[in-house]
Structure formats: structure tokens, C-alpha cells
């Protein structure tokens, strides 16, 4: 795209700048629309599992429900509690929303279709996702209310705990791929197992890691069964309790953008990203972005499925799973994977 703007008579720097802005819009705007649609899909899936109809009034089959909800919160009054720390209270939802969009910069949608093709792509994702907790903590503290504060405490402990095991899981992937660049990680999965299956997840040594990454991703994005930060039976609505109107909507959109990001990471790191699942020439006729989106939608279905079926964890169970089960297991697999790669001369 930079080259195109250069033909319009811009210098390289300005062409790069303009094309980057265009790239950001090209990712962020469809993402916002897909977040609205995915909320609708989420509600429909829960409804189907609970033998209900779900949203079916606004628009054909209720398709416009999310947009109607968006319009509703847009027209509501923004209430800032008088005891709240006003500046931080208003910045917090913006932080959550921005950080949820930032990580998308390094996700490869197709071969080379990536906004920032950087060497440290995976580290960038880790860095950005570790920032995500600030939106919650700031909201919890600035609300100056007990329930949001409890929720913020839970959120920070939970996210730090699961980031540790996510780090080890990613090390296994990086060891096998030999790079931190997400585009190259996808390429490394081409014909990974027996020259037939595209994806680290088909590898018996990495499949447990793929499952653990999926579960850790649910904990990291605070989805059910790990949604202790907004456990309505204990904490009203957690850190969002005092929020109304667009500030609330920013949390809502940010949360779902994060969930979609986790699905995209699952697809990219373990299930071959934009590659078709099988390394058969016929399957390459379908564009890579279609495979990528299909995988993302599949993982989103898994997220909804789990949310509809699994009861919420107790807090101590959550911590036990993170520190006593996932951490030792992922550490063991780092040793196993690196040992296997050394034994087979993968690095030679």
C-alpha cells in the first residue's frame, strides 16, 4: 500500500504514514462491526443451548440487536459518581478499548496481510495483553466503591497468574517455529505434521499446549467459567458496576475485541492461521483470509459453548488451576519440547 501512495507523488515517509493510517482503519472498522455481530452470535448460541430464541425482534432474525443496543447506550446519560476519581474513572474504559484494538496490529490475516510485520510480534502481543489489566484496575479503584474494587483485585491477580503459563506455552511454539514473527510462525506450520496437517495443534507434543492456551485465554479475557471479576451473584457487575452509557459500551466492545483476539491467536499459533487445515492443493483455492476467519469463528463458538455449559469457578479453584496445574505442566512441556527438538537436531 505504501508503494501505491508513493505513486501519488508522496515522499516515502508520508506514503508510509498514510498507508499505516489506512491499514489501521481497514482493521479497526470491520473489527468493530464484527464485534457487534459476534455479540449477537454469542447471545444466539447461549439461547440455543438454553432452548430459548435469543434476540429475534430488531431486524431480520434479530440481526440488528447489537446496533440497537449500541444506539441505546449512546443516548443514555453518562453518570460519574460524585465520590469517583473523575479523571481515572473516565480514562479507564478508553484504556481497555484502545488496548483491545492495539494487539490486532500484528495478527496476520493472510500471507503477508499484516499491519506491522515486526520481528517481535509474539512478544508485542504478550506486552499488549499484559496491559489489558490496567483498564480494569483503574476502573475498580477510581469508582471508589467496594464491589468494583474487589473486582479489580481479582482481575489483577487472575491475569498475572495466567500470563505466566501463557508465556511458557508460547515458548514451546516459538521453539518449534524458531521465530517470534507471527507471519513466520504461520509459515512454519505448513505441512508440520507428516507433511499433511498444517498446524502445531496436530502435533501430539503441542496439542496439550493448544488446549491449555485455549483455557488460559478464557481466564485471560475473563470469560466464563473464569468471569470472577464480574460475578453477578457476588460483585453486582464487578468493575463495571458504576459505569453507564458509552463508558460501559467501551468495556463491552473492548471485552469482545479481546475475546476475538484470543480466538485469532489460537488460530494463528496452533491451528495454522491463514493456511488450510490440510496441506492439499485443492484447499489452497480458498483464499487464506477465509480459512483464518473460519478458524476464528470456530474458536469463538468454543468460547460461547464453554460459557453456556460450564459453571463458574470458585476463586481458590481458579488460582489452583493457574499455579498448581498449568504452571508446572507448561514448564514440563517446555523441557519436553526443547529436549525433543535437541534430540532430533531441529536447531542444527
Amino acid at each position: 500500500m505504501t508503494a501505491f501512495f508513493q505513486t501519488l507523488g508522496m515522499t516515502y515517509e508520508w506514503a508510509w504514514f498514510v498507508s499505516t493510517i489506512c491499514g489501521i482503519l481497514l482493521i479497526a472498522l470491520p473489527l468493530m462491526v464484527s464485534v457487534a455481530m459476534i455479540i449477537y452470535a454469542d447471545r444466539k448460541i447461549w439461547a440455543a443451548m438454553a432452548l430459548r430464541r435469543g434476540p429475534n425482534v430488531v431486524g431480520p432474525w434479530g440481526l440488528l440487536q447489537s446496533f440497537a443496543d449500541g444506539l441505546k447506550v449512546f443516548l443514555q446519560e453518562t453518570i460519574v459518581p460524585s465520590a469517583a476519581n473523575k479523571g481515572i474513572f473516565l480514562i479507564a474504559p478508553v484504556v481497555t478499548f484502545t488496548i483491545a484494538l492495539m494487539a490486532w496490529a500484528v495478527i496476520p490475516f493472510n500471507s503477508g496481510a499484516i499491519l506491522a510485520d515486526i520481528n517481535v510480534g509474539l512478544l508485542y502481543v504478550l506486552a499488549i495483553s499484559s496491559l489489558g489489566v490496567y483498564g480494569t484496575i483503574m476502573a475498580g479503584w477510581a469508582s471508589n466503591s467496594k464491589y468494583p474494587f474487589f473486582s479489580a483485585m481479582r482481575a489483577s491477580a487472575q491475569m498475572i497468574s495466567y500470563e505466566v503459563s501463557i508465556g511458557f506455552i508460547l515458548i514451546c511454539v516459538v521453539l518449534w517455529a524458531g521465530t517470534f514473527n507471527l507471519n513466520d510462525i504461520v509459515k512454519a506450520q505448513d505441512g508440520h505434521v507428516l507433511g499433511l496437517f498444517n498446524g502445531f495443534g496436530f502435533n501430539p507434543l503441542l496439542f496439550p499446549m493448544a488446549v491449555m492456551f485455549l483455557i488460559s485465554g478464557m481466564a485471560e479475557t475473563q470469560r466464563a467459567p473464569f468471569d470472577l471479576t464480574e460475578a453477578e451473584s457476588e460483585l453486582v457487575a464487578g468493575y463495571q458496576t458504576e459505569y453507564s452509557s458509552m463508558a460501559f459500551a467501551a468495556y463491552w466492545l473492548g471485552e469482545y475485541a479481546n475475546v476475538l483476539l484470543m480466538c485469532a491467536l489460537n488460530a494463528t499459533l496452533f491451528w495454522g492461521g491463514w493456511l488450510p487445515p490440510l496441506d492439499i492443493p485443492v484447499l489452497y483455492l480458498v483464499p487464506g483470509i477465509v480459512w483464518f476467519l473460519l478458524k476464528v469463528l470456530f474458536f469463538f463458538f468454543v468460547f460461547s459453548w464453554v460459557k453456556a455449559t460450564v459453571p463458574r469457578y470458585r476463586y481458590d479453584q481458579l488460582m489452583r488451576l493457574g499455579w498448581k496445574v498449568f504452571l508446572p505442566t507448561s514448564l514440563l512441556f517446555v523441557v519436553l519440547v526443547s529436549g525433543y527438538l535437541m534430540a532430533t537436531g531441529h536447531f542444527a
Partner: protein
Amino acid sequence: MIHVIAFYLFAVMTIASGAITILSRNPVHSVLWLILAFFNAAGLMILVGAEFIAMLLVIVYVGAVAVLFLFVVMMLNIDFAELRAGFVKNFPFGMLVAVVLLAEMVLGIGAYKAGALQLGTPDGMAAQPAGTSNIEAIGALLYGRYLFLFEAAGVILLVAMIGAIVLTHRQRGDTRGQKISKQIARRPEEATVNVKPEVGKGVSL
């Protein structure tokens, strides 16, 4: 052009947020400004091409250390009057620290003006080889030349961790931990019993 703008943006933001960290009255605001300073410092590192260090700075300091820091500061019950009362008492010590820092900085800049310190070996062994990424260069140094120092740092951290656990862990004797395996192994037949009591007799438990 753009990288000059980016540099001045990051640099001004780093210095400004560093200054507000000290000046702001609310400790929680201080920590948040400190986090912004960390983040902008990471931006500066990316500009000089040290993207790996920049990402580690964000992951380790912003993502983990500062969260715990914020956690602790938020839990404190801050009495602002008391904070200000301590200001006069601690002022001389604060000035002393400030003077030491200033002297160090002047010394450092002076030494740099007199001729930069040669880092690494003169034959350029420590320099990043052309065509390798940050990560490869750092990895080659850490796991090659500085392997034993790296291992020593790891051992020191391990000792510190075990020490912290030993210091805080105590056996009270009157606590009952739950055994997850036992809970999972429990079947409905063991846990429940079906009885048909006669009317007015009740059940013995």
C-alpha cells in the same frame, strides 16, 4: 521526519510523566504516571532499534511489576495530611538523594563528553552482527559469552524466591486444606443417601 517527531513525542512524554510522578499528590496517580513513563521509555528503545528490550520492559515492568506496585499502593489507606507532615522531616534526606543523582548524571555526561566508554571488546565481538535480529544477538551473548553470569543471576533469583517462600510460609496446624483429588473422586452414592422415613418419625443423620 516521522521518527524525529516520534522521538520528541516519546522523550517529552517520558520526562513530563516522570516529573508528574513526583509532583502529583495522590500516590495512585503517581504510579499511573510512572507506568506512562515506562511505556514511553519502551517507545524510545524501539526507536533506537532495541525492540526486544522494549517489549521486555513493557511485559516485565509495566505488565507485572507495576501492576503489583499499583495493587499495594491502592490498598494503602492514605492520609494526605500525614503525607505532607512528613515532607519537612524528610526534606534534607530527599535533597541529599537529589544532589547525589545530579552529581552522578553530571559525571556521566562529562565522562561521555570526554570520550565514550568502549563497551565490549575492541574487536567488536559484542557488537550486534549485521543481519541478525535483536533476539538472536542477545541470545548468542547470554547463552554463549555470559552463560555463567546468566546462570548465576538465575540461581540468585531462585534463592531469593525460596527465601521469600520460607519466610512467609508457616504451618498453623489448625487449618484444613482441601484435597482436590479426594473431592473429584467422590461419587454421588457415597455422598447422598435415599431414605423413606415413616410419617412423624424423622431421620437420624
